[in-house]
């Protein structure tokens, strides 16, 4: 009997495709071709001559690259199978990727960028032929200035961490311009700020001082003041932090930094909970960055493309990177980096397609809509917090009993102490239900962590579905622990072994490296060379 339609159990039954798919290089069949390139027409070769002869010897391959030879349809099947083996955006309830701010990227915005003027945009086109792209970029700069309260904006940074790098590069240039570059060699951050702040500062040559939270989980103001000195170049903080806790003393942090001549840099990669509610400049910050691919809906994941908006105060505007777009009459013109600029941090104007997506998203919502989006993100998160902390064994350390902003770093510590099952094992079992979650940045300050962020995009029903799966796995940990320990059961892949990924002698990020390290093969062209 096929009717009436059977009710669906909760949590939903799910099974990922399992294709046992070879690596693309293993699909090689000698002589197969994806595209049969037509032979050169008579007379052409004679007219053109040997096109390769003009290449300098250093640029010539002595042997062709060892690329796999595969027919077109087999290539298509290969990638479709791989796509079926992933838990991707637009498929599952993606609230487990906390701090990543996974939200719906409206498909209509993808249609908007499918015009040749954008798809085929080139950074070296004449100004006259790119007035539309320049106008949208300029307009989004004004919107971001309004959202942050800052004076000037650039989208040149091609990613979130790249944006943080731009922040510290401008701060470094600022102090150097005042003759304090040598003296100010320390940057202060907090353990719950995104680690890219510490990483970028360190890469820029600074000593990094990390502040731990106080007993309530708030950034420790007294510790920060103890760390400040005339050697401090900047504080670089995230707020709300990865815990979802908003630093209520943020103005005092900024003021204390300014009092010793340091600058204040605000990592607003994820500003999903504060749009239209607080502004970086109003708290006194000198520089901040947003990720267009988080808060402003541009798609992300799998390493890109991404885009950051760097916004700065008037004092820091001369240090902005890259070309600047200037409104001139009815049109727009481009000025090269100014004399104080840190120069280029990426080619061209940044990821213009993301600029257009973010512009479309903001214009569709309007000022009121942005604030409403943030309010819903916060409401969703606090509903999720309420539901998750009802699951026996789950908790939300720090600031007990208080509300959070847009995300929460939870802990399975109680469940772990009772069952010995780790958060990572629970996360793997969640994939059997078509979900996943991310644990935490390193180090695991919150024990047995998992970080959830529902954003404004998920409905109550979807949040409930996610929580039901969490509760079911928690029950299994107590009653059927072997089911969790041996998970996944309905998934493509079993377990990854990090030892291989952490050991330079064993990691292999290319096929050549894999053949060399595991089978002692020397690539043909290396031999020839």
């Amino acid at each position, binding site marked *: 009997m096929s009717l009436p339609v059977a009710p669906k159990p909760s949590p939903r039954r799910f099974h990922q495709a399992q294709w046992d798919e070879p690596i693309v290089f293993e699909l090689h069949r000698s002589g197969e071709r994806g595209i049969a390139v037509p032979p050169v027409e008579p007379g052409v070769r004679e007219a053109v001559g040997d096109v390769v002869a003009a290449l300098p010897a250093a640029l010539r391959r002595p042997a062709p690259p060892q690329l796999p030879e595969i027919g077109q349809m087999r290539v298509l099947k290969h990638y479709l199978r791989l796509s079926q083996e992933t838990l991707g955006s637009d498929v599952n309830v993606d609230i487990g990727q906390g701090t990543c701010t996974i939200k719906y990227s409206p498909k209509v915005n993808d249609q908007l960028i499918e015009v040749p003027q954008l798809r085929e945009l080139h950074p070296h086109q004449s100004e006259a032929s790119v007035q539309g792209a320049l106008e949208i970029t300029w307009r989004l700069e004004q919107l971001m200035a309004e959202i942050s309260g800052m004076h000037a904006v650039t989208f040149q940074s091609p990613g979130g961490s790249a944006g943080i790098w731009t922040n510290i590069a401008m701060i470094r240039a600022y102090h150097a311009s005042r003759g304090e570059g040598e003296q100010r060699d320390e940057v202060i951050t907090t353990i719950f700020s995104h680690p890219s702040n510490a990483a970028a500062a360190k890469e820029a040559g600074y000593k*990094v*001082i990390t502040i731990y939270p106080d007993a309530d989980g708030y950034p420790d103001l007294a510790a920060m003041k103890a760390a400040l000195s005339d050697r401090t170049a900047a504080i670089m903080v995230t707020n709300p932090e990865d815990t979802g806790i908003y630093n209520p003393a943020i103005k005092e942090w900024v003021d204390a930094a300014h009092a010793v001549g340091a600058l204040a840099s605000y990592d607003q990669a994820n500003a999903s909970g504060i749009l239209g509610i607080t502004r970086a400049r109003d708290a006194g910050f000198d520089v901040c960055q947003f990720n267009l691919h988080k808060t402003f809906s541009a798609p992300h994941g799998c390493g890109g493309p991404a885009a950051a908006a760097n916004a700065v105060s008037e004092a820091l505007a001369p240090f902005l990177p890259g070309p600047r777009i200037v409104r001139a009459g009815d049109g727009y013109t481009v000025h090269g980096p100014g004399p104080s600029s840190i120069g280029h941090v990426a080619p061209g104007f940044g990821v213009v397609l993301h600029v257009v997506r973010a512009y479309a998203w903001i214009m569709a919502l309007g000022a009121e809509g942005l604030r409403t989006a943030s309010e819903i993100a916060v409401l969703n998160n606090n509903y999720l917090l309420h539901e998750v902390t009802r699951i026996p064994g789950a908790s939300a350390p720090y600031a007990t009993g208080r509300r959070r902003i847009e995300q929460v770093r939870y802990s399975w510590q109680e469940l772990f102490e009772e069952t*010995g099952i780790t958060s990572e094992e629970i996360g793997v079992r969640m994939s059997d239900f078509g979900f996943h979650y991310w644990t935490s940045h390193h180090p695991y300050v919150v024990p047995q962590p998992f970080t959830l962020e529902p954003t404004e995009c998920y409905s109550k029903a979807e949040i409930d579905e996610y929580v039901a799966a969490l509760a079911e796995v928690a029950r299994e940990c107590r009653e059927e622990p072997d089911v969790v320990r041996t998970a996944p059961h309905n998934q493509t892949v079993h377990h990854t072994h*990090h030892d291989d990924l952490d050991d330079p002698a064993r990691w292999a990020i290319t096929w050549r490296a894999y053949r060399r390290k595991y089978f002692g093969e020397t690539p043909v062209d290396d031999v020839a060379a």
Partner: protein
Amino acid sequence: MLALVVNPIAGVGGPAGLAGSDGADVQADAAARGGLSRADARASDALRVVAAAHPGATVLTAAGAMGEDAVRRAGLEPRVVFTAAIPTAAVDTTAAVRAVVEAGARLVLFAGGDGTARDVAAALTPPPARPVAALGIPSGVKMYSPVFAISPAAAGGVAAAWLDEPLPVHEQEVLDVDEAQLRRARVEPQLFGMLPVPQRAGRTQARKSPTPAGEHAAVIAAARAATSLFRPGVRYLLGPGGTLAEVGRLLGVATTALGVDVVLDGRVVRTRASERELLDEISRGPAKAVVTVIGGQGFLLGRGNQQLSATVIRALGSDPLIVVAPEQKLVDLHGRPLLVDTGDPEVDASLAGYVRVVTGVGTVSLYPVVAPEAGASTHPDNAEGALHAT
């Protein structure tokens, strides 16, 4: 292969209201007061987790209450390689551990407290030819040493994962208190050795940021940063602990893991120095003490490094310390402050506040330091706080 050694009298003094279970007299006293060891039951709690993942696995162990009973109760297969005289004594634990290692054990689970950990460390000193790791199933009264899992089930989880594939190990301190002192409300744990404890490193499916290749790599990074601060002509008083042993290795000098050594211009000028010898060295020129976080409770001074006394700290002047530790040591304090207890309130107060802990080249963490009321924070009732998740 997995092994289990239970100290069947561990923890017997706890329920009986005694501050430990060391010594035959105390054990008899505890038995008279109705004290029961919980080590046996906790060992089988841990092994049940192993049994769920590896049904029917064989466990090397000692006869009867020293492990065999717990293995059977968990539904696993005991292979008895040691039989103790009754009643058991410390020497039995050491002999049992040697026996299971001899029989091929690569991970020794032991149920007990700090006293048991000492006996296990003794059995693994000098280290056997093949590396052997050890992990405590928390069952004792005193557990100052960060060699215990946070719960029996957590210990079982580590053991089950170990049977899938060996985990990286990290040297942790074995601390123990003289219980006679403890019963007189004086707490001065000594450092008795180091144990290689397995670490369950992150096996995340989504790596947004690289984790250090292992805790040992983090220790090396911290130690390297400390050595980069060393200046010519300055005497460095290297305290005990694994991080400072690594400092010695990086300097290419032989230091003692448990004592205080003095290094000057890349040479060891004093080994296992006493307080008097340290004062003598300090009188010869500028000097600094280099210390790490000792044990699970976060002591910088006063535990395991009592040679670095209040008098020594005073003699070092206004900026006496370089504190070095991998970040994980701070994380493992779960928000509790670092502690200094030199016995001199004035010296302790001068060190209280915030200290810069060198965690790597170019990175420090600012962390609170407090001087506890004498003995208060190390009362055995609080010893549970010292347990570490591994």
